[in-house]
């Protein structure tokens, strides 16, 4: 309980700190903080895990173990088109559960999902998958993350 509130408050302050100084509502800094965090974190989390068979295995790991360790729950839905597009759905996303589900608050939603986009991108990047991660919030506290694998 206490460590959860610490993470929540720290995250909220990082969001404020990153966005107060720039006027353009630039989420890049926030995303980058998430990226480096995810990149380092996955190293520690996978130290006792067997190698992943394929890309889908990796995504499944992100949706179950990785999510549980950070957000204390699994994602509600994982979908893929088998061509490198994955949609991860969390119906009650941790950073949005304390925010009122109104349209006014919906404008603020992108701020609270940017870090997680980076976190996911960083984690799978260290597992050898280059990707673009975006998020979509239609109604608080549900959130969808779109992971697009960059093949070259």
């Amino acid at each position, binding site marked *: 309980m206490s460590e959860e509130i610490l993470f929540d408050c720290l995250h909220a302050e990082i969001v404020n700190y990153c966005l107060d100084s720039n006027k353009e509502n630039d989420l890049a800094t926030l995303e980058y903080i998430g990226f480096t965090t995810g990149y380092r974190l996955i190293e520690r989390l996978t130290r006792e895990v067997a190698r992943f068979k394929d890309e889908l295995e990796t995504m499944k790991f992100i949706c179950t173990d990785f999510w549980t360790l950070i957000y204390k729950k699994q994602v509600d839905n994982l979908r893929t088109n088998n061509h490198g597009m994955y949609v991860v759905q969390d119906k009650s996303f941790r950073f949005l559960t*304390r925010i009122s589900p109104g349209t006014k608050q919906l404008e603020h939603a992108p701020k609270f999902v940017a870090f997680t986009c980076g976190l996911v991108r960083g984690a799978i990047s260290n597992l050898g998958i280059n990707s673009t991660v975006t998020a979509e919030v239609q109604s608080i506290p549900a959130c969808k993350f779109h992971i697009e694998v960059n093949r070259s």
Partner: protein
Amino acid sequence: MTIFNLYIFDKCGTLMHYAEWNRTKKSGITREEEAKLTYGMLFSIKSFVSKISPYDPREGFLYYKTNRYALHYLETPSGLKFVLNTDTTAINVKELLQQLYAKIWVEYVVRDPLWMPGTVVTSELFQSKLDEFIKQSPIFGIRNI
């Protein structure tokens, strides 16, 4: 048993939130004036109680009763004040207020990243959770005034 209304003040005496359920008699003055009056009275009672007590007061002022209602008072170490008016037969209100503080205030106000400390609470999520919490409490009960 029933619950009439609730005031939440911060340490400076600002009314952070007000909610009412089965209140039948209005004060006839504005919400701000009423809050000031209530806070002033509580402030006086608090200092009166601590001065007049023949023992070293541990918890200080907890509640008072008239023949029609009871006012319950919970002050947190941070100076936040929860004031709940119930009818005179209500029991375990202190526990209820403590739960309200821990499960509703801390969860939906303190942990709301859009709330700035020291400002009035506008979160609809908090309001609906508070309403649900009060209505589910055994004290809320059936109206018999």
